[in-house]
């Protein structure tokens, strides 16, 4: 169970590691930054170099596509569509914006959905498809409100106003402009306020509410401030209002200001409009030469603007007619007529194209829906496939991990097995060695025992032979026999002690003390000496070697023998302490040790010292109302 949990944990850790690799957030962040940098750079180029702007927009867009950056894709679509619109590449602009719209809708992103709708509306607006534009703009309103993005609502209202204006619904247009202005004012955005006012003023102009228009444009000029495009338009519009009011001086002055700004901006359309304004004012001032000069100059800048050109052709026809250049006047007039027809035809065509486009649009939307469905399906399939892949990967991973662990386990077990085997072999060797030693020991014991038995039997035989000899009547022989018998007995006794010390069954401290007590007590009793023994009631269970037992016993025996034989005592007290070391006191109440010259005691003491030293112990002999022999012996682990 524990192993299972361990495996599971390992798999989880590996999976989370894999997940971390699958989502390189750091890299993604780097890409986002790069996309933003490129798109911002593109927007900065918009006012200076459209091609550079286009280049960076494409670059940023491509990267956004590659790393599938939603924000990047949106920013690219809205920015690049502006450039495409400026280049009149409306179809490309529309395509990009529709993709952005679909993406924003899919993500349920209200703000970007609104922006996309407004921008698609703008494209239709630029193309003159005002009905379509109007639909998109109005559709955008609820999304902007949902996104709580009222700060774009002013632009939207302003744009709707333009559309209403173009549809001839001027009063409604003014209402929308006022709504837009209110929002822009709330936002305190003077540029946007100026833009709305420009639009509103144009409606007022066309309604010939010139006083209102002039006031509106003047305000726009004030608010435009640094924004030269808006300022130029404001001056141009103000000039138009003055011109319509036949106030030529202020009209001309404002046209001049507008022309200067548009020249500065390189805005050909604005320039052309300002030049037309100049021409009209001079024409009104009965200065056809000046008028001709400005009109012809305007013609150069208005090639791309058929509506303005139409107005200009008519003006030029009038100017030339006033200058008595009838042929040229006719020429311009016919140009005017042709263009008018063309524009009308174009309008019809555009309506047809518009209808066709709307149809194609519907078709496209259907296709897109189908494609989206397919995409969703394939995505689902992919996901399924991916999940299969992930599951397979996890299973493989798990198998690899498990087999690795298994392998390791086996290896460890093998190792353990080897160690165990080695240990066993070592043990075997040790046991063989031990058996050999034990065998040798046993053999030695056997030999020793046999030797002891033979010796004992021999000594006993000698002793009985000596006794038989003692029964002879020769007193000298009797004495010798007695000595032989005595020697044999002493030797047998000593043999007895050796046999005892060699008996491993007696290898305990208790056995030593009991044996010693019995022997010493018997000896003292035989020699009619009073005695006492103090032995702890609980003798610790300690194993002591034969060597230890023999030496301790012999030292105590020697000490008691010395006391009895040499001190002349009538009493011996022995007391024993067993912990932490073995301490034995032997006290007699005799005359004390004779001076060291005594050969027997001298030899005996030296013997005792040697034996105690051999055990790593010490012996003290103190004279105090007799003699106290104290031997202290540490237990040596055997």
């Amino acid at each position, binding site marked *: 169970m524990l192993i299972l949990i361990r495996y599971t944990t390992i798999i989880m850790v590996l999976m989370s590691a894999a997940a971390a690799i699958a989502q390189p957030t750091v890299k993604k962040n780097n890409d986002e930054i790069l996309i933003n940098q490129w798109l911002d750079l593109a927007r900065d180029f918009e006012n200076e170099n459209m091609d550079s702007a286009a280049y960076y927009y494409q670059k940023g867009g491509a990267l956004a596509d590659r790393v599938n950056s939603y924000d990047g894709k949106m920013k690219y679509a809205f920015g690049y569509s502006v450039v495409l619109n400026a280049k009149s590449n409306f179809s490309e602009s529309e395509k990009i914006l529709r993709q952005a719209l679909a993406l924003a809708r899919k993500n349920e992103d209200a703000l970007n959905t609104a922006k996309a709708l407004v921008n698609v509306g703008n494209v239709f607006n630029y193309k003159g498809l005002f009905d379509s534009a109007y639909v998109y703009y109005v559709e955008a309103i609820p999304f902007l409100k949902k996104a709580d993005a009222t700060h774009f609502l002013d632009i939207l209202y302003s744009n709707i106003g333009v559309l209403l204006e173009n549809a001839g619904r001027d009063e409604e247009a003014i209402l929308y402009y006022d709504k837009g202005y209110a929002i822009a004012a709330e936002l305190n955005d003077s540029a946007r306020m100026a833009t709305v006012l420009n639009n509103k003023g144009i409606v007022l102009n066309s309604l010939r509410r010139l006083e209102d228009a002039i006031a509106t444009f003047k305000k726009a000029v004030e608010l435009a401030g640094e924004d030269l495009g808006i300022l130029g338009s404001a001056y141009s519009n103000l000039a138009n209002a003055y011109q319509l009011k036949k106030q030529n001086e202020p009209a001309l002055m404002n046209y001049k200001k507008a022309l200067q700004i548009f020249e500065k901006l390189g805005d050909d359309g604005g320039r052309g409009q300002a030049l037309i304004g100049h021409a009209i004012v001079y024409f009104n001032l009965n200065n056809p030469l000046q008028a001709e000069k400005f009109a012809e100059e305007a013609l150069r800048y208005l090639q791309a603007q058929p509506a303005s050109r139409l107005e200009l052709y008519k003006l030029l026809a009038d100017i030339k007619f006033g200058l008595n250049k009838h042929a040229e006047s006719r020429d311009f007039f016919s140009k005017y007529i042709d263009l008018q027809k063309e524009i009308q035809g174009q309008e019809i065509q555009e309506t047809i194209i518009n209808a066709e486009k709307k149809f194609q649009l519907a078709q496209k939307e259907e296709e897109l829906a189908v494609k989206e469905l397919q995409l969703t399906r394939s995505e689902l399939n992919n996901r399924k496939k991916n999940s299969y892949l992930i599951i397979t990967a996890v299973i493989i991973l798990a198998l690899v991990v498990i087999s690795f662990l298994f392998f390791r386990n086996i290896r460890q077990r093998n190792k353990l097995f080897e160690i165990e085997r080695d240990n066993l072999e070592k043990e075997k060797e040790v046991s063989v060695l031990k058996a050999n030693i034990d065998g040798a020991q046993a053999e030695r014991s056997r030999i020793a025992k046999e030797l002891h038995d033979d010796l004992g039997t021999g000594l006993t*035989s000698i002793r*009985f*032979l000596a006794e038989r000899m003692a029964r002879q009547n020769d007193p000298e022989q009797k004495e010798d026999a007695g000595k032989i018998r005595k020697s044999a*007995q002493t030797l047998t*006794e000593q*043999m*007895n002690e050796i046999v005892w010390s060699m008996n491993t069954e007696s290898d305990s401290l208790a056995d030593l003390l009991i044996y010693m007590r019995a022997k010493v007590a018997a000896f003292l009793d035989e020699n009619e000496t009073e005695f006492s023994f103090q032995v702890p009631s609980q003798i610790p269970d300690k194993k002591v070697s034969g060597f230890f037992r023999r030496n301790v016993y012999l030292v105590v025996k020697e000490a008691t023998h010395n006391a009895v034989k040499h001190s002349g005592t009538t009493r011996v007290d022995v007391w024993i302490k067993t912990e932490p070391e073995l301490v034995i006191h032997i006290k007699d109440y005799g005359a004390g040790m004779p001076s060291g010259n005594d050969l027997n005691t001298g030899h005996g003491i030296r013997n005792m010292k040697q034996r105690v030293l051999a055990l790593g112990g010490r012996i003290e002999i103190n004279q105090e109302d007799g003699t106290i022999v104290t031997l202290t012996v540490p237990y040596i682990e055997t």
Partner: protein
Amino acid sequence: MERKIKVSIVEDQQIIRKGIRDLLNSSDHFLCLADYGDAERALDDIPKNIPDIVIMDIQLPGMSGTACISRLKTDFPGIQFIMFTIYENSEQVFEAIQAGASGYLLKSETNEKILESLQELYDGGAPMNARIAKKLVMAFRGGEERTDESGVESNAYNISQRENEVLQLLSTGFLYKEIAEKLHISVGTVKQHIHRIYDKLHVQNRTEALNKYFGKARV
């Protein structure tokens, strides 16, 4: 003239055997009834010449002294067996005691001591040493445990409180004299206690042997 104590000897060493025989015969109280060089001959002859005491050598060629005692003690519980040994080899002595011996006699003892021991034995005493006493204490303790299991309260050997005390003191190396002083009894009483301990041990063994023979369960 008082009755002499009849003693037979089983000892393979001719010199020793002869030495003991001479020792006994030189005494006023003992009579050497027979001497045997091996256990087989003893086993064969003793039923015909029943002594009071048998001095039995532990190490014999062929049948061991212990085995010989074991056979004879069953049929002749009245005979006292005493082990004759060079060393106080507790294992062998203890085995012999269990088989029916009433103590041991060291071959290195003086003549006086040998005769004294035999007299003691005959009078109802028993020679014993600390280590044999210890072994007996352990044997009796084992017996106690056995009876505890079978639910019988008295110990298997019927060792009395006093006998147990004597045995305990003996096992810690006390001399008979010391035990007597400690328990306020005479040395003779101590010896009698020991003798009875031997008897009880042997009775127990005989009962076991009989039960074995009849296949009857012990209480």
